[in-house]
């Protein structure tokens, strides 16, 4: 028994070391930094809770938080609808369906930063084939980019969920005279619940942490209208050179993410248990 415990521990050691080194230690360090005034060079000075109290007075941060929330709702609704729609379209084996599955997934093979630069070039007034002028398209172009880049990936996850539903359940329903809508709402959606929970959690955390697309496409403009939370953290660390303040905002954002994710799982898992 003891030997089993030891060999078990040995098996998990590599993973535990990696998680410890690249997740737990940095996390503790960020928490520790957030309690200090932490310059780039030189000795940190204990200053708690200054980095946290300053968050309330940061107008840019509250604007960014509001924008990030709006963006998250927008992206989650649109991306989920699009990804689920695509998954339903390519769900069944038909001639040519492999081509469409590949085509929908293909944008995922382009790095996100490269994809952002691609859109920047496409939409540029100077060099782009589809120039957009004026202020309004800033958010729209970022949303379009994210939909294009991530719809296929989320489609793939939803597709595996769809294909895990046994066909005889549908058959039984059909024999009982269920309509297409009834089959979708009474069979597909309930049995997809864990997959939907996974996809929504990834979409929401991903959107709350949005950075690349705005950094490259809009630089947070025009007039700070597309400045996300992570961009404010970046500004604190790399423009104001105040690592403690950046760490403080990161800790608060992390706590917020943990709350959102646990709420989400609680709601979505309730009836499957």
């Amino acid at each position: 028994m003891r030997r089993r415990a030891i060999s078990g521990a040995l098996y998990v050691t590599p993973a535990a070391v990696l998680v410890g080194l690249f997740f737990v230690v940095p996390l503790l360090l960020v928490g520790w930094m957030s309690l200090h005034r932490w310059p780039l060079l030189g000795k940190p000075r204990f200053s708690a809770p200054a980095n946290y109290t300053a968050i309330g007075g940061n107008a840019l941060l509250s604007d960014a938080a509001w924008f990030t929330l709006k963006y998250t709702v927008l992206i989650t609704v649109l991306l989920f609808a699009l990804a689920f729609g695509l998954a339903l379209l390519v769900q069944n084996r038909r001639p040519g369906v492999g081509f469409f599955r590949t085509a929908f997934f293909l944008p995922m093979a382009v790095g996100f930063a490269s994809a952002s630069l691609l859109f920047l070039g496409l939409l540029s007034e100077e060099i782009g084939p589809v120039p957009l002028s004026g202020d309004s398209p800033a958010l729209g172009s970022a949303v379009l980019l994210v939909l294009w880049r991530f719809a296929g990936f989320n489609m793939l996850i939803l597709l595996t969920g769809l294909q895990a539903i046994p066909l005889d359940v549908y058959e039984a329903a059909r024999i009982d005279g269920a309509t297409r809508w009834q089959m979708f709402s009474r069979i597909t959606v309930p049995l997809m619940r864990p997959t939907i929970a996974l996809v929504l959690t990834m979409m929401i955390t991903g959107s709350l942490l949005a950075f690349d697309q705005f950094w490259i496409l809009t630089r947070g403009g025009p007039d700070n209208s597309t400045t996300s939370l992570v961009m404010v953290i970046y500004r604190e660390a790399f423009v104001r050179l105040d690592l403690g303040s950046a760490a403080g905002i990161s800790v608060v954002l992390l706590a917020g993410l943990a709350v959102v994710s646990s709420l989400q799982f609680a709601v979505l898992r309730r009836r499957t248990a």
Partner: protein
Amino acid sequence: MKAMLAAVVLLLATAACGADEPGAADDGATLTLWTRAATESVSKAYADTYNAGHRNKIEVTAYPNEEYPAKLASAAGAKSLPDLFAADVVFAPQYAAQGLWADVSDQFKSLPFKDSVAPSHVRAGTWEGHNYAVPHTIDLSVLLYNKDLYTKAGLDPEKPPRTLREFAEHARKIDQLGGDVNGTYFGGNCGGCVEFTLWPSVWAAGGEVLDDDGRSARVDSPEMAEVFALYRELYDQGAASPASKGEAGPTWLGALQGGKVGIAPGPSVWLDAIEEKGVKTGIAPIPGINGGESTFVGGDAIGIGATSSKAQQAWDFLAWTMSDEAQVEVIAKRKGVPVRTDLASNKYSSADPRLVTANGLVAKGKTPYARNFNATFNDPQGPWLTTVRGALFGNASAALLAGNEAITKSLRQE
């Protein structure tokens, strides 16, 4: 033959002695130098000439302009700064205050020409009385005007505007040529572009934008409001290119190289880049509303990385870059502005009267000084860009009033 052999031996011996001398400044060390893309060609020109005549070797690495400050910050956090690094001169007070550069006060004070090294640059690299950085390149804001469009519009290409009002008149006149020609162009979505090109007009009128310590803003002054109002009118009337509103910086030079802009304030270092595209260009000082002239003395400052172990060798390079040899044969030769006021007129500048105009401006211009300059004025998320957008495209007086308060708060933030 014997004599020659002896000479060679003697030479080797002296060289060896030189190298053995503890901490010799030119002992064949390899020094890393970081710079931003905008300054790369100048840094490389310095390095190539220095490397040719010294045993030390300078290796230049350039980073994209926008990513450079973050690159420096992460290197400082990891205590792995390069031996030397240049930075936009307006960032210098912050880097000096943060201790990113080594203290070079003693070495600087021993330079025979220390009093003629561009004073506003030296001040930018000073924190609490200590020198941390010296000038590397100088870039001045000037009016750049298209001589062919001047002639077409019936204006005299040898008579650039002497007041900002005259500048606006010329711009309107050229705009009337119609087609895709625009009177003027500015970076209306770029804090750095606006401070570089509009502040000189405020200074020329005797106004101030910042106090001496960089702790209080004065952007709500009548001088600043007048300058904004003039550019705003040009935009509203369509004399300024509609693209000015969205211009965040990257396509600014391209717009001037297109040859469709009559007259616009911009960096003096673009003169060559614009003429290369076949656009005949004149240079004039940036005037105030009713006259006077000034310039924003920009460019890059350079210092020794605080974590470098080769400070002595690095200073050998810095001292050389400010020498007559480097300033005339490297900087002036490639039509740059010397970082020393006593070299403003030299054998290269006398060949091109436009360079004399530019060099003469250094003494009249300013480099604003503030520890939180980048976070306040250059960063797109800073309060200055919000103020600029309001003053040019929104409710001007409210924007300047609210902006002044927000900017002062940002300047004082610890």
